[in-house]
């Protein structure tokens, strides 16, 4: 019988090959697999598209804002609410004060200051119709308005702001001295700064049915406050 003698160290060395290779492979490739499912980001918006979003907010401002000065109620309550129907739908709450912000609760007719806001989780909804299509925009508002009952008609000067959301797109806006009068749908003065998708743009109200929008890069647009439609203006205004 043929018998060969081998040194056992060769077997031990061979046995070491497996763990050595395993450690090497783990170091090289790791245990975690790369993702194979698509993980695309939401498409970035152009400045035109963000301007279009601002247009819808400007239109809504012309609908919601006047309630700060037009709202009437007979009962004496700490908080009132108003339900919008139509293109802008939902409920806003109004807290009236006399003596300015932080003053005492008052009825709407006695107040010189009002907080108008949407409740958490209950935004206003704009139904957008584009050639028969329907989509939604969700808006929250937190308006702080000084009321001038001595003016004719009564006026409110709105500050504060809110948020915009449509699908995965979100934006915020701030009001700076937006003046609305009782009985008018178009703010007579003031600005709204709209910030979304990396763009900042300013909407200026002047009392008629259009508002001017100017981007940080100097692009100008005109907003139809009745429809929210935005068109690019050839010359900055």
């Amino acid at each position, binding site marked *: 019988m043929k018998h060969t003698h081998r040194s056992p160290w060769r077997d031990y060395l*061979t046995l070491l090959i497996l763990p050595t290779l395993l450690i090497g492979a783990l170091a090289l490739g790791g245990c*975690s*697999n790369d993702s194979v499912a698509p*993980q695309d980001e939401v*498409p970035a918006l152009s400045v035109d598209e963000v301007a279009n*979003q601002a247009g819808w907010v400007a239109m809504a401002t012309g609908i919601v804002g006047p309630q700060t000065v037009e709202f009437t109620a007979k009962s004496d309550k700490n908080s009132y609410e108003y339900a919008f129907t139509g293109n802008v739908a939902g409920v806003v709450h109004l807290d009236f004060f006399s003596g300015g912000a932080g003053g005492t609760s008052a009825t709407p007719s006695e107040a010189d200051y009002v907080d108008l806001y949407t409740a958490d989780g209950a935004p206003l909804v704009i139904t*957008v119709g584009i050639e028969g299509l329907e989509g939604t925009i969700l808006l929250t508002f937190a308006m702080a308005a000084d009321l001038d009952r001595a003016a004719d008609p009564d006026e409110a000067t709105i500050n504060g702001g809110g948020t915009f959301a449509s699908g995965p*797109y979100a934006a915020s806006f701030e009001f700076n001295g937006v003046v609305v009068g009782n009985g008018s749908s178009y703010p007579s003065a003031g600005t709204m700064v709209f910030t979304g998708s990396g763009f900042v743009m300013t909407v200026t109200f002047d009392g008629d049915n259009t508002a001017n929008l100017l981007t940080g890069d100097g692009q100008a647009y005109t907003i139809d406050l009745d429809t929210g439609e935005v068109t690019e203006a050839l010359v900055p205004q």
Partner: protein
Amino acid sequence: MRVFAKGHRNRRGRSAACLLLAGLVCLLVGGAERAAAQDVEELLTQVGEDYAVAYSSPFLYSFGPNANSNMYSTAHIPWTRIVFGIGVKGMTTQLNETDQTFSKVIENVDLGAYDPALAGQFGDVFMSGPTIFGSTSTNGRVQGFYNGVEVFNAETIPGLVDSRWSPLVAPEAYVGGVFGLKATVRYLPEIDTGSYGKTKYFGYGLQWNVNGILKNLPVDIMAGFFTQELDVGTIYQSEASTYFAAVSKSFTMLTVYGGLAAEDSKMDVAYEFIHPSDPTLNSDVNFSIDGIQTSRFTLGVTLDFLAKLNVEAGFGNKLTSYSAGLMFGL
């Protein structure tokens, strides 16, 4: 609209479906195959091609690496002594955590492709939600955007089974021992799933050990190939093939082995998209996906005691797979 509607599958059904989708586990669970085929068919018929590709991608891309796993458990094949065996191989690929969800964007597309009422409106479509291995309690969603504003928003389908592991089980048999050759087959008899067609699986391959020619080598060396086809009803038709070379060293009851392989895979998907409200918008969906893995490095160990039990890891250029086999025979 080409993508919407909720799927309503129960968890047990989805689990069974996934096992079938994963390949051959239906043989083990018995009787689940019909419900399984119906599960996946009913889910997919509710979505269009773009959604189906993204939704199915973890299964589509893990099939090849799984199928091409555990091709051998030793490089040793006798030249003058018959060997044979029969048993089962199980493989799995651990998915990246992010593969349980997906998000897919189609930019600047005519929205009329999703709803004829939108024809001529160019916008972006954003699809997102669980993949086939994602949450079974969350529906996906398809949203259309025009001019920065959402113009449609539709719920779609949930995941089929909530798991980060994509499994495959294959019965296997081999015979060899003549001139260092060994033939291997993987096979399941056809299973009729009624209106959804037949599920069948067949693979074959050949291995050759070089030690009969290159004598006195300190290790066994072997080369071979294997090709296989798996059809899941009329929905999935898949192919996978691999060419490999391996070395092994045996120590009494233990064999360590490793190898390199070149591999590929392909899956054809075909089903009918059924519009939820307008039958005139039904359409046939057909697409083909090539596997992303083309090579792997395998390391494994086999315990030969009464039966041959082996475990191995396959480090592919894209995915890492793990597998085990239990074979009875000589």
